[in-house]
């Protein structure tokens, strides 16, 4: 019974914490411009993230170590420094986009320009991390994030052509604007295979004191949570295809997002969208902030835990404080949150190999994972994801130039 509860809570947490500004914006743009044709990108990204999250959880549960710990130990400082710089920079960009997302939600709700909300939002994020425990952030915010399930309800109500939805799950070539099609596909993959998700998940496994006995639970949570999470992204895409595309809206501005739910739920739809956007981005902002602080502290061997008082880990607390300040600045200076989102998702896709390649080595290292090493199937999947990551790294920048506009 206790295990069932743990699994249920884990899945709820993963589902509630899955959606963020990147997955909402990229799925909405995909539906609004290419109807149901890009569902395959979400499915592919979902499959990749299930495997990566499962492996990072298994690694932490068995070895008692997080991914940055092991990357520093096995790959040395020079590789860690390279990964730290790239991942830190990309995560900061994603954080800026998420903070922008919360600010946009508040602008939609109040009519006050989003840049005015940057400082209060940053303060709230900092306060929750400063005063809260890991459980408050992981479970509390994620449970609130379940409001994003309204997209699934909405997608069901609009009666999409289900045969076309299934057809969209199979990759097809674009009928028009190929560069844009592939750019959005790459951005969806960047939003789905976010390194912050599996780095945060591995730190969470240590915070929650997972042991070898959690290997099975981890598998169910990773598979269930990421699958249902991807389902919400697909629902956003369906809504955009059914409601935005016929109206000629291409999600070039966040003010178009409420049209995803208003035709289905009326005025309530507007508020559901505002709450979903605000809560999803707020949760993601906290997770990314913590992930940057975890990455720094774990890589340099400092004391870290969100469950300790800030005074007991001054460097860790200092890093997340500075991170929030840096993440807030773009919104404060009025940088368009949608531009930040699209750019940060592309940057994530372009830098994926740096954080995914270590999986292949660490998940086969007996000194860490002992009998829980990857089998041939998991290794084949990781190799495929690495190949995909290298392709994304090569094609992202040209696609950003030719299809990003």
């Amino acid at each position, binding site marked *: 019974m206790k295990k069932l509860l743990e699994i249920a809570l884990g899945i709820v947490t993963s589902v509630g914490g899955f959606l963020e500004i990147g997955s909402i914006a990229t799925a909405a743009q995909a539906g609004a411009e290419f109807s149901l044709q890009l569902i395959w990108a979400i499915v592919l990204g979902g499959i990749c993230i299930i495997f990566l999250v499962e492996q990072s959880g298994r690694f932490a549960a068995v*070895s008692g*170590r997080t991914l940055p*710990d*092991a990357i*520093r*130990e096995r790959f*040395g*400082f*020079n590789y*860690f*420094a390279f990964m730290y710089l790239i991942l830190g920079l990309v995560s900061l960009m994603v954080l800026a986009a998420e903070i922008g997302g919360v600010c946009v939600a508040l602008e939609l709700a109040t009519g006050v320009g989003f840049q005015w909300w940057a400082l209060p939002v940053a303060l709230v994020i900092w306060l929750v991390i*400063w*005063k809260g425990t890991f459980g408050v952030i992981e479970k509390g915010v994620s449970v609130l994030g379940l409001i994003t399930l309204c997209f699934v309800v909405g997608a069901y109500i609009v009666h999409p052509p289900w045969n076309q939805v299934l057809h969209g799950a199979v990759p097809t070539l674009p009928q028009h604007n190929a560069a844009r099609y592939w750019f959005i596909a790459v951005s969806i993959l960047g939003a789905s295979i976010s390194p912050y998700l599996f780095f945060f998940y591995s730190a969470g496994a240590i915070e929650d004191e997972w042991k070898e006995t959690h290997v099975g639970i981890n598998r169910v949570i990773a598979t269930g949570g990421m699958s249902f999470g991807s389902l919400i992204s697909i629902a956003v895409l369906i809504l955009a295809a059914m409601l935005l595309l016929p109206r000629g809206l291409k999600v070039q501005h966040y003010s178009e997002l409420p049209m995803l739910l208003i035709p289905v739920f009326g005025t309530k739809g507007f508020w559901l969208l505002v709450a979903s956007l605000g809560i999803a981005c707020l949760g993601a902002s906290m997770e990314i902030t913590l992930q940057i602080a975890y990455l720094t502290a774990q890589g*340099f*061997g*400092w*004391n*870290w835990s969100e469950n300790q*008082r*800030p*005074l007991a*880990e*001054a*460097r860790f*607390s*200092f890093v997340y404080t500075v991170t929030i300040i840096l993440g807030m600045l773009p919104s404060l200076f009025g940088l368009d949150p949608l531009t930040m989102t699209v750019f940060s998702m592309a940057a994530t896709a372009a830098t994926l190999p740096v954080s995914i390649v270590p999986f292949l080595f660490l998940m086969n290292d007996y*000194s*860490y994972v002992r009998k829980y090493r990857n089998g041939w199937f998991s290794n084949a999947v990781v190799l495929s994801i690495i190949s995909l990551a290298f392709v994304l790294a090569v094609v992202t920048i040209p696609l950003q130039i030719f299809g990003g506009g």
Partner: protein
Amino acid sequence: MELIRDCLDKQVDDQAKRRMGRVDGIILVLEPDQPPRVAYIELGVTTLMNRLSSRVGRTLARWMRNRNISPDPYRIPWGKLKIGLNQVIAEVEAEKTPALKWELWLRKKVIGRIPGA
């Protein structure tokens, strides 16, 4: 034991399991007619930067000296270490060593001054 594989970059904890940092460098002593002897491990940012590039390390050390900050890394004698699987335990008290100098400075000067810390 293989020094690079089993010691370098491993987590260093003190006896009370307080995290001190990582093994940023290993010092070998060469004496005439003797095999190289492992004398110390080093913890410190200048050691790390030297591993990236000796020019970066020198520049950082100069910058620190100009601001009256000691660039010297903290050395722990090899005899005070227990090397475990992916972990190094040092027979010292972390808070009394320079390894936590910045942690204690931030605690006192910055974090400790914020309400609720």
